[in-house]
């Protein structure tokens, strides 16, 4: 089976790898690029713990091949902070206790981050809908909604 040389920009940095066709994007990120902030929580594309941005759009990286990301931009949770400063979405989760075990959190934040780029003033219903592809077992979602609302308010006042 052929190997493929791919070039992916991850969090603004150009990265290269030689990969099998079947390598999943989530494994490229976690195992090859050693960015372990993106997590794996299921095997049927339900849980969303693996959510990253592909050219700015949230995707479940467990259901994308690494080769499909060749020549494209990926943003992971590690790319949210800038110059050691937290992004408003991260700050929102911190202020509103939007995480407990932290395992679903990277995926949730990437989805929240993308939502706020598309809709700066989401309603609660908008937020719940946007994160309906991300499962959480710890928080019951109440504070996750508040975290995104916090980030929305903070982003507007910037």
């Amino acid at each position, binding site marked *: 089976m052929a190997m493929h040389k791919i070039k992916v920009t991850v969090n603004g940095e150009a990265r290269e790898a030689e990969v*099998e066709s*079947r*390598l999943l994007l989530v*494994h490229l990120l*976690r*195992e090859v690029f*050693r*960015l*372990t*902030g*993106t*997590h*794996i*929580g*299921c*095997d*049927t594309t*339900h*849980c969303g*713990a693996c959510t990253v941005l592909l050219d700015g759009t949230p995707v479940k990286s467990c259901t994308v091949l690494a080769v499909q990301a060749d020549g494209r931009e990926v943003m*992971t*949770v*590690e790319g*949210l*902070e800038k110059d050691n400063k*937290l992004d408003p979405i*991260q700050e929102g*989760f*911190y*202020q509103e*206790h939007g*995480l*407990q*075990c*932290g*395992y*679903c*959190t*990277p995926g949730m*934040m990437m989805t929240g981050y993308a939502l706020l780029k598309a809709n700066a003033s989401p309603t*609660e219903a908008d*937020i*719940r*809908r946007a*994160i*309906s*592809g*991300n*499962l*959480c*077992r*710890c*928080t*019951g*979602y*109440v*504070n*996750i*909604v508040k975290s995104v609302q916090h980030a929305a308010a903070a982003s507007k006042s910037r």
Partner: protein
Amino acid sequence: MATPLTTPEVGGMGHSIKRKEDPRFLRGKGNYVDDIQLPGMLHMDIVRSPYAHAKIKKIDSTKALQTPGVLAVITGATLEQYKLHWMPTLMSDTQMVLPTEKVMYQAQEVAAVIATDRYKAADGVAAVEVEYEPLPVVVDPFKALEPGAPVLRTDKPGKSDNRIFHWEVGDKAGTDSAIRGSEVVVRQKIYIPRIHVASIETCGCVADFDRVRGKLTVYMTTQAPHAIRTVFALVAGHVGLSEEKIRIVSPDIGGGFGGKVPVYPGYVIAVAASVVIGKPVKWVEDRMENLQADSFARDYHMEAELAAKKDGTMTALRIKTVADHGYADAAANPSKFPAGLFSICTGSYDFQKAFAEVDGVYTNKPPGGIAYRCSFRVTEAVHAIERMTDVLAQELKMDPAQLRMKNFIPAAKFPYKSALGWEYDSGNYPAALKKAMDIIGYDALRKEQAEKRKKGELMGIGISSFTEIVGAGPSKHFDILGIKMFDSCEIRVHPTGKATARFGTKSQGQGHETTYAQVVAEELGIPAAHVEVEEGDTDTAPYGLGTYASRSTPVAAAAGAVAARKIREKAKKIAAYLLEVGEQDLVWEPGKFSVKGAPQKSKTIQEIAFAAYTNHPQGMEAGLEAVDYYDPPNLTFPFGSYICVVDIDRGTGEVKIRRFVAVDDCGNIINPMIVDGQIHGGLTMGMAPALYEEISYDESGNVQGGSFMDYLLPTAMETPKWETDKTVTPSPHHPLGAKGVGESATVGAPPAVVNAVVDALSHLGVKHIDIPITPEKVWKILKEKGAAE
């Protein structure tokens, strides 16, 4: 709620300080087991049985070993050489690590493949060829008890049936007689099916045996690292593992909920592989393995009888239960309690007579029983009593809130000795229920329901007034495999006045790095921001029994408070020395000792700490530290009242939760923000089994609901906006008056939901519905009663 003793800057009890552990999670720098990569690390994947009961005729590893990257295939025969093919369970039963003769549940581990990376390990698994000879399958525990049923545990010499244990508690004769003599008796069969914790992180480990040092390190998804270490030493001592050379590291854990307490075969095989090969071996299960093979929860078939006077006074309770344990009793109970703390089933009510019995049964299913935030079978007990209370209310045509108020244990009776032997520490049940009723507008809802009924619309109100029992537990009664269920804290205050505090528990999201720091801040006045909390590394943490069954706050936080007070005692001596007064002349406020009547003469805890290393009295040991192993004098009894409002779609049978109010009482609260978070999560894990989740088996033992396609975790769309409030009734025996709250909502919520749905249909004659209440179940009822759209 009382005003906090400390300032927000110090952050002691009562302050909602932001979580200290958050930064690494927010920045993607958590350290979960699957994040760990060690040099030379190999990967392990497991071959699993498609059959629920079958002889293994042959395992052919030839093709697997020819697969590129595959280094070894481990079978039961391999482990048998080291006598590791069977292992003891936490309930002193035995279970297989890898089978040598037969498999006993679908998805059981059959062989393990070791390869250079996880992709090759998966290829190796696909290439292992196993020949099975199917055997008769037993999935119905009642059929398993019938004479002539196939005996499953043929490994136990002389075993001629499928019984595991019989357990009973209470006054059998007195209860029988009370029920016979009662004016009203209601009876109901209640089945709670299997469910699975399904934390978003599955289970796994990296086993790393260092041949040079003879030391085994296992990074593991475990809620109880010390217990695991001792179990490994006992079980594998004969292959050279010695406890002082075993290190269990529980790093960041992505949710536990009880599912990460048991020792799974995968861990043992990975350890054996690492010891034999001399390289680190990683094993991480995927979601389907997790759902199909790991410790399940519930599977209790209950028959409950509740006796009362015509005026609604409850007189007696009797519950008979058949417990389906799968093929081995691997429940993580305290050893003297094969049915956990089920005897809390008298609940919040003042029963004179009660009796409960539980019969454990073997079936061809995975082993387990205790998990999913159940506090050791308390979910089952509370489901029974809160359902039966509503069944009684319906029978007597009495309002369920009124019936509860009538029967609540009155405040004057606390500490209360229940008919089944517990001493409830404190409680104020009427206050919690009244608060919940006020918040939700109970009377107005009843009026609305009456109006809607006239129009044929279906709306229901369900109450659950639960009493929890947590904080296992006093050494007199509580042990796991003989190890008493104390817990521990070791605090060291450094010269510059900061502190490190290590505990024998292990957070999987409960926020211990914050709450325990707040306990130290409360007792010593050192800001929580300056207290570094550590858990989970058996090389450094004091021995503890881990975090599950909501025991951390009742036991380990207590140890923290007591250890801090020991430090305060020594600090007082140093302060007296520095201030040149007697100890009796000193007054304490958080963070400093000052002289009575001369408050300007004082020493801060930081100054005292420095002095402990630089200027301590002659004859006194240097340093400022203490350790406490806390043996709780009793369990604690958090409680609450929940009210759920549902609307039912008459066309589809769908149940929609319109509102859910939860009033909880967990005694004194360390961090209100964290407590609320625990409750939100617990309510969601209470609603989920009530409406969505179930693991079941067909007649051939094929699992249904073995992936997220069919095991339905609620999303943010199904989950309502939970409304929470509190009452505060401190625990009289806990050093901080705190009770713990992690599982209260999972325990209290399901019956509130069921009671609401049954209430919506009660005018049609419906008395009970087993969970999960799927739309089809409701629709069937509506159709039968002629009320469908």
